[in-house]
């Protein structure tokens, strides 16, 4: 079998993250798996070492070349730390044995925080599932993977580290799209770049039935509720800019790929908060129509081509990295996050082998907001439990109060787990 390369470029989506990541926008996201028993640290360390070696795209360190960043194999051992109450904090690679992901544990919860340059939600899920599988196996459990989990002793393939964005690129004329500035949710920021989190555990069956009642998908239901909660919590007489909800889209559903690196595009649902509409059903119909328009494969591919085109530009390629960094930071500072009001992400339904599922309680998934988009929401489902995570950089929780009011109106019961909102 061909030996995997020991170094490779960052994929197109990843190129921006090492440049613009800082203390206030860390570009980390956390995926947690909660076991039914407390974690044994020595077994977890062993499982982590094996799993990291298997996943080539995770077992890397980032380095600066003269023209581009690149990944190369990391010979050090990943570190496991106990949680310290901070979520998705900025990762200083050198303090983490040069790894771009952070492994944490707390009682029964195993969490891995990933720097977005490494992978997207799907790739992260594969890694943590494999880690959980390896941990349970080393703990003496007998589990048949059923082809649903990547085993640490399975051979890696080069397709897992392929940059799918490059494969989608081809030279064609593209229409120019003007992006509008988004309405900004204001509030009092926590000190020390603290991210406050509320996890709401709800019944997936109930959510599905509510969505079916309205004739929408779960994703559309959540987006509709976000829009209505933003409207109700906004309390402004008029809104200068549109509410723009950012939704990443897993491109693997359109282009079958086994890559474990970033392979996602995005859509934005725009809504004029000045409209008088307060009826959830009407808003959901609007969201449904908008999603149909936005989830246009050609448009999403065009966005990818536009981004890849920049890095194909010969002049840009020959510009030293230090100048590229200054230029990218400057452009990102002016435009960057000002295009979103609210960030969301849906990791979908996690499927595990039967023997493994009985040892796991649930999952959670948290993205990180930033100074311009101080609130975010993410969802993941396992079994009959859907975890809705609210992440906030601001103390005010008017949005969350309205959202839970909507959940109550839909007769959805939730169980809450939160970190300190009163720090």
């Amino acid at each position, binding site marked *: 079998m061909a030996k995997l390369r*020991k*170094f490779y*470029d960052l994929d197109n989506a990843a190129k921006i993250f090492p440049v613009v990541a800082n203390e206030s926008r860390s570009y980390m996201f956390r995926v947690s798996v*909660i076991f*039914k028993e407390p974690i044994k640290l020595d077994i977890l360390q062993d499982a982590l070492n094996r799993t990291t070696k298997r996943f080539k795209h995770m077992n890397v360190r980032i*380095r600066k*070349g*003269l*023209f*581009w960043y*690149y990944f*190369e194999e990391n*010979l050090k051992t990943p570190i496991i730390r*106990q*949680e*310290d*109450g*901070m*979520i998705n904090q900025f990762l200083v690679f*050198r*303090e983490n044995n040069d790894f771009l992901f952070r492994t944490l544990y*707390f*009682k*029964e*919860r195993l969490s891995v925080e990933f720097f977005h340059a490494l992978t997207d939600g799907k790739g992260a899920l594969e890694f943590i599932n494999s880690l959980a599988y390896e941990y349970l196996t080393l703990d003496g459990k007998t589990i048949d993977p059923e082809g649903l989990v990547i085993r640490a002793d399975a051979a890696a393939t080069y397709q897992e580290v392929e940059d799918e964005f490059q494969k989608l690129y081809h030279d064609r004329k593209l229409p120019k799209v003007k992006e509008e500035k988004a309405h900004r949710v204001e509030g009092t920021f926590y000190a*020390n770049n*603290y991210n406050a*989190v*509320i*996890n*709401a*555990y709800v*019944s997936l069956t109930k959510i599905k039935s509510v969505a079916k009642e309205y004739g929408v998908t779960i994703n559309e239901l959540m987006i509709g509720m976000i829009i209505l909660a933003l409207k109700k919590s906004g309390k402004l007489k008029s809104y200068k800019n549109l509410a723009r909800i950012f939704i990443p889209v897993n491109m693997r559903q359109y282009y079958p790929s086994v890559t474990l690196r970033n392979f996602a595009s995005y859509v934005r649902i725009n809504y004029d908060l000045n409209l008088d509409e307060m009826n959830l059903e009407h808003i959901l119909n609007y969201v449904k129509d908008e999603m149909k328009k936005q989830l246009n494969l050609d448009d999403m591919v065009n966005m990818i081509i536009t981004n890849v085109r920049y890095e194909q530009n010969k002049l840009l*390629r*020959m510009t030293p990295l230090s100048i590229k960094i200054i230029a990218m930071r400057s452009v990102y500072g002016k435009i960057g996050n000002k295009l979103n009001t609210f960030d969301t992400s849906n990791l979908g339904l996690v499927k595990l082998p039967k023997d493994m599922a009985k040892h796991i*309680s*649930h999952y959670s998934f948290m993205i990180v907001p930033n100074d311009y988009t101080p609130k975010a929401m993410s969802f993941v489902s396992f079994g*009959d*439990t859907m975890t809705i995570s609210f992440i906030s950089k601001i103390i005010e*929780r008017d949005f*969350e*109060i309205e959202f*839970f*009011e909507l*959940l*109550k109106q839909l*007769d*959805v*019961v*939730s*169980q*809450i*787990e*939160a*970190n*300190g*909102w009163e*720090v």
Partner: protein
Amino acid sequence: MQYCKKCHAYYYKKESTCTICGRPLVQQDYDSQVITQGYPSVHLHKSHAKFVSKVFGIFSMAITIILAVINFATYTENPTLWSLIIIGPIAYAWIILAQIIVSKHNYATKVNRQVLIFSLIIILIDVLTVYRAWSLTYVIPALLVTTTLILPIVVASKPTLYYLHVRSLFFLIILDIAVGIIGFTTPFMQEGVVWTSLSVITAGILLLSTMFTFARKDTWIELIKIFRI
């Protein structure tokens, strides 16, 4: 479990108020389907080292400003920059702290940075003491030749980690050649003294040849990684 009537949400028994709306919770039975742990209290890592360095920073700044002001005020009577004798070592101590003690770069990078910084300081001393070109003619070439001899030996002692230091060794080669060329193309070195420039260029070329002789593949791959367009 504890229950919030407004938010229709359940909490673990240790909670007394709703995190979402702030209202008090009431006791109500609920069959939880999930195992929750809560989150640990936030531990902000307070660094004593940062506090100590701030104190020394203020002291250093105070001494520097006082000496600079006195030097400036007495310059007409005593036209020498005597304050640099104190300010220079203070500045260099901070450079050593930042570049060697605190920095998490590998040792080869630290050595290169020290060589560069030390060379610049030596040139500055030469310039401030009526430029006689001893810095560029003798001291810096000697420093570079010594580093070019010793650093690769240390790197070679751990062959599996060689690839981590290729860029540092390459930087050293470029520095050797640049300093050597200065002797032939500029009037900044003592006239007639070419052997120091020749030795430093030779050291650089020898190091490059050694890298390609003993670790051709690793060296080539590292150079591709660095210079890929």
